């Protein structure tokens, strides 16, 4: 790495460690001759284009990755016909979707029906704006970045509702209602989980949170594991991934809010869903796994590659849960949210506040205090999880999963009673 002089490339446009350089140079060049507003607009455009240029191909690869990984879970090969190792399969799918006829139900509310596939992209793309790919590499490093993330992701649900309602289809309406109910419920534990980080690190800027982790040499998943778990589950609920994919539960309501969308309109929903999964993975990596920072490795490897690697790990975890777990029912999800996640995250907000106050007022040495707090918080998390497991396993679930084997007795009710009494005696 140090084979060439770093000082030569530092800040030059071809310094690929910081992708911001290019846009900064262009902006400075425009600022030399153009008005202010032009350079702001150009900066925005460049950022959006850069993000689009990154996530467009990434999405195509991600579709392939997801299908391939799921196929491996299911002991299949997955796509392997189009292109090398099936890599061009998503392209072929996209071409197919574009060529398909765009159907609209006759009784649909036309305008509201046509808008959602386009509008759904807006929050999906806006969220990327506050994601720091490196120390200075985010399109807009807002000082309320965390709030911005929550606000923008919250508006997506409105689009889902528009899609479901305008389709004039009962499945779609059910999907939309479920999506909305889920989304506004799971936003609460999501906010609370992020609030622990905000309270503890004392900043609402996303990059600030990463810098705090870098400064204190600790990642938040060690300090606040329960917030990480809650955020992961709430995020997978908001993303409609199993076990919380009730708003597009295939076995119940066909495809939920996008039942009536065909062709590329469906393709857009699908792409945004994948893109949201990716961006939420990236935010989980940023908030809880240190983002672009990795104990000094970011000095040697471009920061955005570190972030992508962490994102990939979280994304794999999301695929894993999807490939393994069945789906919960809506009332079960709701009671899990309100009875388990919200109280637990609320308690951890208080814990974070207390620990932060202690750190600030007592002036403790963070290198000693933080590991102790981490141990305490991990113990608390384990306790909370075990308490939940104990409480949630009701009497019904605690009964053993077993069958009684009957060898010599055949019959009806009398035999059933006999078998039951023998099985009961044998316990």
């Amino acid at each position, binding site marked *: 790495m140090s084979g060439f002089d770093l000082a030569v490339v530092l800040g030059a446009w071809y310094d690929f460690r910081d992708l911001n350089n290019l846009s900064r140079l262009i902006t400075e060049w425009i600022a030399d001759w153009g008005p202010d507003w032009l350079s702001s607009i150009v900066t925005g455009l460049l950022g959006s284009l850069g993000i689009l240029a990154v996530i467009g191909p990434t999405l195509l690869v991600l579709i392939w990755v997801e299908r391939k990984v799921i196929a491996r879970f299911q002991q299949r090969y997955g796509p392997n016909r189009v292109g090398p190792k099936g890599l061009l399969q998503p392209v072929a799918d996209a071409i197919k979707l574009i060529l398909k006829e765009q159907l609209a139900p006759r009784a649909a509310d036309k305008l509201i029906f046509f808008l959602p596939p386009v509008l759904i992209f807006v929050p999906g793309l806006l969220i990327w704006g506050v994601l720091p790919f490196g120390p200075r590499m985010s399109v807009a490093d807002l000082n309320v970045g965390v709030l911005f993330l929550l606000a923008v992701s919250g508006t997506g649900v409105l689009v889902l509702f528009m899609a479901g309602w305008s389709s004039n289809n009962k499945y779609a309406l059910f999907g939309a209602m479920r999506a909305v109910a889920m989304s506004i419920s799971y936003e609460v534990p999501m906010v609370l989980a992020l609030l622990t980080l905000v309270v503890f690190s004392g900043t609402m800027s996303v990059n600030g949170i990463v810098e705090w982790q870098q400064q204190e040499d600790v990642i938040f998943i060690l300090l606040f594991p329960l917030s990480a778990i809650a955020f992961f589950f709430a995020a997978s609920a908001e993303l409609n991934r199993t076990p919380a994919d009730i708003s597009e539960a295939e076995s119940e309501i066909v495809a939920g809010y996008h039942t009536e969308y065909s062709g590329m309109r469906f393709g857009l929903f699908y792409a945004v869903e994948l893109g949201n999964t990716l961006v939420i993975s990236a935010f989980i990596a940023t908030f809880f796994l240190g983002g672009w920072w990795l104990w000094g490795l970011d000095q040697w490897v471009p920061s955005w590659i570190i972030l992508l690697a962490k994102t990939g790990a979280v994304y794999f975890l999301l695929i894993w849960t999807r490939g393994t777990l*069945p789906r919960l029912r809506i009332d079960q999800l709701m009671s899990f949210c309100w009875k388990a996640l919200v109280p637990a995250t609320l308690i951890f907000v208080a814990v974070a506040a207390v620990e932060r106050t202690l750190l600030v007022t007592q002036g403790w040495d963070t290198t000693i205090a933080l590991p102790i707090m981490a141990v305490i918080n991990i113990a608390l998390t384990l306790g909370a999880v075990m308490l939940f497991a104990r409480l949630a396993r009701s009497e019904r679930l605690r009964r053993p999963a077993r069958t009684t084997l009957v060898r010599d007795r*055949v019959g009806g009710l009398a035999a059933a009673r006999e078998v*039951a009494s023998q099985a009961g005696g044998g316990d």
Partner: protein
Amino acid sequence: MTSADDTRSALSGTIETLAGDGSEPVVVNLGPQHPSTHGVFRLKVTLDGEIVQDAEMRIGYLHRSMEKLAEERTYTQNIPFTDRIDYLAAMSNNLAYCLAAEELLGVEVPPRGQAIRVLFAELQRVASHAMANGTFINDCGAWHTPLFYMFRDRERVLDMFEMTCGARLTTNYMRIGGVAFDLPDELLPTLRSFLDDMPDRIASYEDLLMENEILHARARGIGVISPEMAINSSLSGPILRATGVPWDLRKANPYCGYENYEFDIPVGEQGDCFDRFLVRMAEVKQSLRILNQLIDNIPDGPWLADVPLHARPPEGEAYARVESPRGELGFYLVSDGSPAPYRFHCRPPSLINLSALKEMSIGGTLADAIVTLGSIDIVVGEIDR
């Protein structure tokens, strides 16, 4: 029976009060084109929010009038129809029909034929239960993973069918008086390796599914039916056994020499969807037990009795039944002395097991209704015939 009557009247009373207060119940058609109805089955559910108030099934989309067609064909020509009745358990259907025809004709099946029939009936049970359990977990919302696991085993069974009779799904293998072909040489080694592998596989499925908290939450206490109600509704097979009633025709009315094999009847405790799943898992193990006893003890000799192709049974009637993977599968044949049956009736377990579907679904959520339907393990070909 009075208790069930009371329940029904109480339920209908509740529905009236629910509908009377100005809320709008939603009628949702599940099917005939729906991912969870396993074919062209239509369930019309009336929902209050997510709670099912009424469930009514509409069937007949796959009606092929087999009972009428069979009256025009000879007894042997009718065997392929039975494949298509329950296309997921073709061997069992062949067997039940041949048993009824043999009862009419008074034919004795040679011992080798009997053993081969048991072998394939049990293999068919393994394949059918693999399908049933896989799709059941799918209906609970798993993303196809358990389904594909269980399909691997089903594929191996179907491979064995293919090497024996050339067909994988609609086998047309049994004949009146035995089976159509002898076992090929490569079958028994294949079967042995299958039997060697299966315990590990079943153990892995149990690891994956038995203690799965989400599966428990979804299937425990859902679609509960009492043994009294189950018997009164003529439910049979794993659904009846899941309520705790040890009723298995292989034990109660042994056919094809089932009395010579050692196996147990698995019964459940609560009669809910999860128990049905458990009973099916346990039945697979029992089938493997039977196959293990069978594999080294297949007698030599002919596999098909000498029955004329255009057999003319004497006037009379016969009702023969077997324990198919779905329950009591019976064939009622009436002969008027001609080469074709005068009346050909199939007692379809899938259809009759749906008798209590409405009672099981009402009061639960829409998702529960889907799980209940999945746990009943319907085959639309058999429902509609």
